[in-house]
């Protein structure tokens, strides 16, 4: 779940499409609008049919104060509904929703170089299958922060530029608490145990783009304000938790004859100084200690291809694989005992789709996906690790 929240926060920065928002020469104000909507039915091999969707809406306004000074305001609404999810991330029934506000000042120092300082505020809600009110979500969060980005254009003809960005976020989880500690201590209060997930996040990225090829390196640090690292004695020590992510990614969006391809590959190295105590049951007097439990390497490969049969219609296919290998975490067997092999999770998705372009700004897509999730962890009382599933849905997209 934390990983999902981090992803949401990263996405809360200006999306690439929003970044590309450019003023029309004759206008002082240029609006930006992007809405994508999808809804699908999910049929897992274990469990009953369910439905879920995703909504992403961005509404922005770019103001050209002078030729060199621009102001860009963006509101972003995002909803992620029920759906299949990679192992160790979230339950199928978990949902999240967020509101993001970004205000960015864009100053052209030369024709090829501009700086973009900005501020960002985000409110996130989470909800489980218990359908609690949105305001009561355990992982609800508020964040505030700022960023400074600089763009240098090195090839105007082929839209070649490089962006360096540093962003900072202070993140609070007002409802988050240590449920186990509250359960074990009758006198414990949520507001005393709260704040454990509060953190300060810093992120630096360097991203070159050229001729519709893009890539980059992103380094993220999460410093927890209160959460301590559990030691091998089973009690929390004095060291505060600190997580880092280093991500390398590369992709392109090109057309060759009727083939339109936009593959992307990324590789992430996650480290955390947090350890783990495995209690097999409540009151277990001999819990097992697992050091560096959360460190992993993850690879994502996504290869979508659309065949543009006519100017309106396209048939699409996509292959997606995500593989996460933990550095030290051992897989568990059916009895919740650690085995001798390190845990590896793989999720593969094959998607077929039909896309219709309604006009130059709108399109609709019907899709069907087949998913295979596998892991050498066989203990699945709380989270599914090995399953297959089908999903069928419809997606709309309108962007201006």
């Amino acid at each position: 779940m934390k990983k999902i929240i981090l992803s949401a926060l990263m996405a809360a920065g200006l999306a690439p499409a929003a970044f590309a928002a450019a003023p029309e020469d004759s206008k002082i104000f240029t609006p930006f609008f992007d809405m994508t909507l999808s809804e699908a039915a999910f049929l897992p091999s274990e469990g009953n049919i369910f439905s879920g969707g995703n909504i992403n809406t961005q509404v922005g306004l770019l103001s050209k104060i002078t030729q060199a000074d621009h102001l860009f305001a963006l509101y972003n609404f995002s909803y992620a509904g029920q759906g299949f999810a990679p192992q160790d991330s979230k339950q199928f029934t978990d949902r999240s929703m967020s509101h993001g506000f970004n205000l960015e000042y864009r100053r052209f120092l030369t024709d090829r170089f501009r700086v973009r300082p900005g501020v960002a505020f985000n409110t996130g809600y989470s909800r489980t299958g218990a359908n609690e009110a949105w305001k009561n979500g355990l992982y609800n969060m508020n964040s505030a922060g700022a960023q400074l980005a600089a763009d240098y254009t090195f090839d105007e003809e082929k839209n070649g530029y490089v962006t360096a960005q540093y962003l900072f976020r202070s993140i609070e989880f007002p409802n988050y608490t240590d449920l186990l500690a509250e359960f074990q201590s009758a006198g414990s209060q949520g507001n005393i145990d709260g704040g454990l997930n509060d953190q300060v996040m810093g992120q630096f990225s360097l991203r070159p783009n050229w001729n519709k090829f893009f890539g980059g390196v992103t380094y993220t640090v999460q410093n927890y304000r209160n959460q301590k690292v559990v030691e091998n004695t089973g009690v929390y020590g004095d060291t505060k938790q600190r997580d880092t992510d280093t991500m390398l990614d590369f992709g392109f969006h090109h057309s060759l004859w009727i083939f339109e391809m936009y593959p992307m590959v990324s590789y992430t190295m996650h480290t955390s100084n947090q350890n783990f105590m495995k209690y097999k049951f409540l009151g277990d007097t001999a819990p097992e200690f697992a050091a560096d439990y959360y460190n992993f390497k993850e690879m994502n490969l996504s290869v979508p291809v659309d065949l543009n049969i006519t100017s309106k219609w396209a048939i699409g296919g996509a292959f997606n694989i995500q593989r996460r290998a933990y550095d030290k975490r051992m897989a568990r067997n059916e009895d919740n005992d650690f085995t001798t092999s390190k845990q590896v999770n793989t999720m593969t998705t094959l998607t077929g789709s039909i896309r219709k372009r309604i006009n130059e700004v709108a399109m609709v897509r019907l899709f069907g996906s087949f998913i295979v999730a596998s892991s050498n962890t066989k203990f699945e009382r709380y989270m599914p690790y090995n399953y297959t599933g089908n999903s069928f849905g419809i997606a709309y997209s309108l962007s201006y």
Partner: protein
Amino acid sequence: MKRIILILLALFLVKSPVFAAIDWESKGMQIAGEIMANPAGFFYDFQQDLEATTPLPPGKRFGIQTSLFPTTIPMTYTNVSLKARLHGEGRIAPGVPQLDLVGGYWDMLAAKMATKDSETVDSAKFGGYYVGGILSASVSPRVRTFWGYKRSVLKAKLDFKAGEEPEFLGTTVSSFDTGFKDDFFIAGIETPKGVNKLWSIQLNYGLRTQTFSSKVSWYGKYFELGLNIFPEGVLVFHPVWNFHLNF
């Protein structure tokens, strides 16, 4: 093209062992439980189907609308909505957006009939209204964006006669008295699909209850076809058919 679509659909929808796993009975019980847990939310989703939250076409001053499906049929929501243009785009000054006032009212016919004829229902009142304003501005000759606000109110009250209370999921239900009201933020975009035919997509977000929906609509001179999506609702998809006249 249609042949290709049919072949692909046949491939994707091929009967697999996964389909055999669907437990429709438990799904039905789950849906019924969700309705009972939040009846106002369930009935409000249908109110959103009848709410006219797209701007008047350029050049039109008034509009009247009634929703036919799934509101009048089968939910018996008799309803009417009105739109009035306060000023057209660019009339006061260049760049000033069009401003429309919108509003509507509905009353559930079945609730009235149940009160009159039923041996179990003592009294029933289902109804609601909404009022709001929509700002719309052209961002190109073929694209109009719109922003708006609406206040929606719903009242749902049902009393069963003593001794005639039904049992639901093991619990005797004697009455329920519930309602819904919230202030909504609306953002949408509209683009032409053909001659006198428009296509729009919009988001409605309730500021207090976090209720939200996405409406996709196709509309012409007389009718509007829509697909309203309530990702957190009991019935996620609502196909919609509305009749409207604009003057």
